[in-house]
């Protein structure tokens, strides 16, 4: 029987970290993801394309689609979604929340030349040609200090 109290706390910790870091990084997707991860005790480095590589290697675990990414976020894991591009890819923090069109999870992200989005489904981050190619990786949050 899972400890529901702990799960809710982990979900809320992730959302709280997103809210705390959003204003400082709303125009910088990789900076936002690095800052949120750091606040939660997880290290991610580099720009968006580097982060997409990192979430596909241990200790991260990948899931094949947005439905399963949402399920991991609902379970309190830190879930990052990303897609590499030339010259710069894009990364987002998946949070617990609804799916759009039954497959695009809710997320927070920063975006250059814009102000990013809070608590918005990722069909507003990538267009119809890209959104089904997004890679998702998740990791357990370290215990709070």
């Amino acid at each position, binding site marked *: 029987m899972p400890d529901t109290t702990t799960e809710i706390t982990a979900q809320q910790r992730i959302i709280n970290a997103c809210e705390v870091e959003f204003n400082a990084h709303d125009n910088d997707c990789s900076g936002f993801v690095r800052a949120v991860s750091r606040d939660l005790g997880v290290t991610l480095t*580099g*720009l*968006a394309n580097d982060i997409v590589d990192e979430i596909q290697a241990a200790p991260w675990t990948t899931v094949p689609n947005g439905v399963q990414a949402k399920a991991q976020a609902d379970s309190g894991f830190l879930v990052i979604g990303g897609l590499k591009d030339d*010259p710069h890819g894009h990364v987002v923090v998946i949070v617990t929340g609804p799916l759009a069109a039954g497959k695009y999870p809710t997320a927070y992200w920063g*975006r250059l030349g*814009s102000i990013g989005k809070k608590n918005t489904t990722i069909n507003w981050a990538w267009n119809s040609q890209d959104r089904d190619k997004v890679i998702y990786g998740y990791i357990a949050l370290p215990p709070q200090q």
Partner: protein
Amino acid sequence: MKFISLLLSALLYFTLAESPDGFQALVFSDQQATRFGGYSFRLAGPDQPDKPTTWQGPLTIATGEKSCDASVSLVTAVYAAQDFPYVIAVTYSGSSTHVHFVTIATCATQWTTYKAFTDGVDVHDNRLSILPACESSASDAASQCSSARVYQLSKDSAPVILRKASLQLTREKLGVGFWGQAMVSNPRTPQAAIVH
């Protein structure tokens, strides 16, 4: 006589200023078509009904009984100009911004769709300016920067890159001039320098 000449010059100036020439942004409100040059333009799927900033698309262009859809997604702006046979649609996906040239009569995309890592796109009069942008992996690290691109727009032919203006805009915004991609230390400061 000199006074009358000055008065006529001033009248001519203000008449021209009040008649905008060149490209201007179309203003869209939810559920309503915007009219321009005998055509109506409608964007579907706004992000927020009261004050939309992005649309899922498509862009529907209609005149009389004829209508077509341009398959542009995540649209942030559409620019049109009197007597130009195309509109410019600005879209994004991930960190990339796309600039499409959409033929009004058919909704087909013509020429190349420009893809850029940019701080923004400005279409003013008959110039398209794709602003430069930088991203850094740490506050003390050099930034990976993309140069500005400035194009001259005309009615009948593909946009023409203006290299001197592009270089100048890059230098104005980032503090250093270059073309394409470059690693830059301290961009947007007096200490900006290209890192080799």
